C-alpha cells in the first residue's frame, strides 16, 4: 500500500502538466467542432472573397454583385489596404475583386473595362476566378442583343441559373468521422507526453539513490515494489485513456460509441500500452528533472510532427513519412486514418488494421525488453 500511496503523492505533484497536456487535446478537439453539418445533399462550396467596389451600385455592377453574393461568401472587410492584405495572407479570403469606377457604364457601352483581382492561387481562389470570369463572359455574349438593360440582366441571370445535377454516392458521415480521427490522432501527443512525464518523474523519485537504497534494505521485496509501480503506472494511463474516450463522446458525439469508436478505442488502447513501456524505457535515461521536459519535447513533439498527429498525413512529404516508420505513433495514426476512411470493415481492412497494430505491439515488446536490459546493466554496474 505504501508504494501506491507514494505513487499518488508524486502523481499529485504532476497534476499541472497532466491537465495541461489534456487541455491541449480538448482545446484542439473544440476548435475542430465548429463545422458540424451532416447534410448528405450536395452543397456547392462558396469561396471566401472580398469585393472592393469603386463603382456606383447600379447597372451591370449591381447585377454582378448580386451574382457574387449568390455564388461566393463575400466577407465584410474594411476598405483599408492593410486589412485587405492581411485578410488575404491569413486566408480569411482567397480572392479580391476590385471593381473600377465607371465599370457599369463602360461595360454597357460595349467596352471591355478591366477588373483587378488578387488571389492566393489555391483551390478556392481558382473557383472564385471561374465564377467571376463566367459572369463577364456570359454578360458579354448577351450584350448588344437585347432591347433594354433590364432584359440583358434577366437573360444573364437566366443562363447563369442553369445548374447541373450532382449526386453524392457515399452515404458516410465523413465530417464527424474525420473529426473523430483527428481527435484520436491528436491524443497520441497527449498520451506520449503524459506517459513519459508521469512515469519518468515517478521512477526518477523512486530510483533516486537514497530512496532506492532504503527500498532495497526495507522489508518489502524490491521486485514487488517494481511490480506495484508497473501496475500503478499502467492503471493511471488506462484511466487517462478512458477519460479521453469519454471526452470524445462528449465533444464529438454519438459516433464515438459506434463501430468506428470501438475500433478507435482498441487502437488507442494498444498505443497507450506502448507509450507506457516507452515511458519506462525512457525513464532510464533521465538524469535530472530537466531532462524529462527535454525528452517529452523531443519524443512527443518529434513523433507528433513526423507522424501526422498535428498535420494530417496526406500533407506530409514522402520522405518524412518514411522516417516516421520507425516511430510507433506512425502506425497508430495510420490505423486511425484507415479506420476513419473505411466504409465497410471487410476482411482486407481488418487484416491491415491487425498488421499495423502488430507493429505497435512489436514496439511495445522492444521497449519492454530494452528496459529490462538497461535495468540489468545498471544493477550489474552497481
Amino acid at each position, binding site marked *: 500500500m505504501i508504494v501506491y500511496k507514494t505513487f499518488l503523492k508524486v502523481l499529485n505533484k504532476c497534476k499541472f502538466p497532466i491537465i495541461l497536456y489534456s487541455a491541449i487535446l480538448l482545446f484542439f478537439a473544440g*476548435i475542430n467542432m465548429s463545422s458540424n453539418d451532416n*447534410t448528405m445533399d*450536395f*452543397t*456547392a*462550396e462558396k*469561396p471566401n472573397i472580398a469585393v472592393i467596389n469603386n463603382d456606383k451600385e447600379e447597372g451591370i455592377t449591381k447585377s454582378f454583385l448580386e451574382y457574387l453574393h449568390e455564388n461566393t461568401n463575400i466577407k465584410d472587410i474594411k476598405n483599408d489596404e*492593410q486589412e485587405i*492584405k*492581411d485578410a*488575404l*495572407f*491569413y*486566408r480569411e479570403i482567397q480572392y479580391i475583386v*476590385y471593381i473600377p469606377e465607371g465599370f457599369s457604364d463602360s461595360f454597357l457601352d460595349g467596352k*471591355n473595362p*478591366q477588373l*483587378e*483581382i*488578387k488571389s*492566393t*492561387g*489555391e483551390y478556392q481562389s*481558382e*473557383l472564385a*476566378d*471561374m*465564377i*467571376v*470570369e*463566367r459572369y*463577364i*463572359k*456570359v454578360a*458579354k*455574349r*448577351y450584350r448588344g*442583343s437585347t432591347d433594354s438593360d433590364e432584359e440583358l440582366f434577366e437573360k444573364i441571370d437566366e*443562363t447563369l441559373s442553369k445548374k*447541373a*445535377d*450532382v*449526386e*453524392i*454516392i*457515399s452515404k458516410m458521415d465523413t465530417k464527424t468521422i474525420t473529426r473523430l480521427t483527428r481527435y484520436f490522432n491528436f491524443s497520441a501527443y497527449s498520451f506520449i507526453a503524459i506517459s513519459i512525464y508521469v512515469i519518468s518523474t515517478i521512477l526518477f523519485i523512486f530510483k533516486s539513490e537514497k530512496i532506492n537504497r532504503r527500498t532495497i534494505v526495507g522489508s518489502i521485496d524490491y521486485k514487488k515494489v517494481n511490480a506495484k509501480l508497473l501496475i500503478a503506472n499502467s492503471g493511471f494511463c488506462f484511466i487517462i485513456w478512458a477519460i479521453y474516450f469519454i471526452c470524445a463522446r462528449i465533444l464529438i458525439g454519438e459516433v464515438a460509441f459506434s463501430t468506428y469508436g470501438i475500433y478507435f478505442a482498441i487502437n488507442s488502447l494498444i498505443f497507450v500500452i506502448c507509450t507506457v513501456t516507452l515511458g519506462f524505457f525512457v525513464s532510464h535515461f533521465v538524469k*535530472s528533472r*530537466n*531532462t524529462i521536459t*527535454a525528452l517529452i519535447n523531443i519524443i512527443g*513533439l*518529434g513523433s507528433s*510532427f*513526423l507522424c501526422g498527429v498535428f*498535420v494530417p498525413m*496526406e500533407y*506530409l*512529404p514522402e520522405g*518524412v513519412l518514411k*522516417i516516421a516508420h520507425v516511430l510507433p505513433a506512425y502506425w497508430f495514426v495510420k490505423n486511425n486514418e484507415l479506420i476513419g476512411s473505411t466504409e465497410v470493415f471487410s476482411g482486407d481492412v481488418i487484416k491491415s488494421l491487425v498488421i499495423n497494430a502488430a507493429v505497435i505491439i512489436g514496439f511495445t515488446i522492444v521497449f519492454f525488453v530494452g528496459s529490462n536490459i538497461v535495468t540489468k546493466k545498471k544493477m550489474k554496474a552497481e
Partner: protein
Amino acid sequence: MFFHNFKYTLKALLRNKGLIFWTLAFPLIMALFFNMAFSNIEKQDKFKAINVAVVTNEYYENNTMLKETFELLSDENNKDRVFDSKYVNQDEAKELLEEEKIDGYVVFSEDSQQIIVNKNGVNQTILKFVVEEIVQAEDTADIIQEKVENIFNSREENGIMETLKSIIILLQNNSANIKDNSDANLSYMTIEFFTLVAMTCLYGGILGAVAINWCLANMSNVGKRLSMTPVSKLKMVISGTLAGYLIQLVGVALLFIFTIGILKIDFGNKTFEMVVLALVGSFAGLTMGVAVTAAIKTSENAKTGILIGFTMLGCFFAGMMGVSMKYLIDKSVPIINKLNPANMITDGFYSLYYYDTLDRFYGNICGLCIFSAIMLAIAIVSLRKQKYESI
C-alpha cells in the same frame, strides 16, 4: 573587472547544459520539425489539375463540342488546365470514384448532365461549375450565331474584309478582361518560423535571468560573495547580462543560418532590417529576463518557469500553434498582440516579408524598444533597492 566577470559568466553559462539546450538547440530542433511537417502543406493547397472522369457514352462520343472542351481543359500544355481527365465507361468511373482516384465523374446525355461525387468540396464544386459552363455555353450559342448573322448581313455596307474582321473580333473578344495583381510572398507558413525566431529571442531572457541570479546575494553563493566585493553592482550586472546577450545572439544567428541557409525558408530580402529586428527582439527578451529575476522573489526554477510560460503564451498568441490564432487576436483583441513582445517580433518579420512599406516594421521596433525600456526600468528600480539585513 568588467571583462573578468563577462568572461566567467560566459563560461559558466556555456557549461550549463540544460540552458544551452533550451536556448540554442531547442529552436533548431523545432525548426527542423516545422520544416518537415509544414513544407508540403502549401504545396498541397496550390491549385493543381483535378482528377475527374468522363463517361464515354454514345452521346459524348458524338458531341464534338463537349469532347473538345474537355480535351482542352485537360490539356497538359494549357496553362489554364483545370482537369486531369480519364475517359472510361460507367462502371470504371464508379470504381475510380470509390477508390478515391477521382473527385467525381460526369455522365452526359441528351437532356441532362449528371455529376457523381462522393463528398462535398471545392474540387467537386469546380467540376460542377465547369459542366454548368459548358451547358450555359450551349445556351448562348444561338446568341453568338445571331450576332454573327447580323454582322454578316451588313456585309454589303461594310465590305467583306471589314465584316470578317468584325466577326473575328466578336469571337475572340469573348474573354474577360481581368488583371491579376496578386502579391508575391503569400506563404503563411513562414509565420511559424517567425514565431520561432521570436521564441528564441525571448528564451534568451533565461540566460539573462541566470546571469543576474549570480549577482544576487539572496539567490546564490556567488551572489553573496560578489555583493561583498568592492565592485560597482552596475558593472557586474551589465557585464553579466552582456554575456547572456552574446549567447542569445549566437542562438538567433544559428537559427537564421539553419532556417535560411539549410532549410531554405524565405524570410524576404530585407537583411539589414531583419538583423536590426533580431537585435532589438533579443534585447527585449534579455530585459524581460532581467526584470523578472530582479523583481520577482522566488526560486530560480520558478523564475525560469515564469519566463518559459510567458514566452510560450506569447508565441501562442503570435501564431506558433496555428497561424490563424495570430490573425484572430490581431483582429478581435488587438491590444493583446500590441503588448505581446513575441507578436511584435513575429509581426516585424511578417511586415518585412509581406509589406512593401516599412511603417508597420518601425511600429513594431518602437513597441519592442518601449517594452525593453519598461523592463529595464523595473529591473533598475528593483536591483538598486536591494539591501539584505540577513540572508
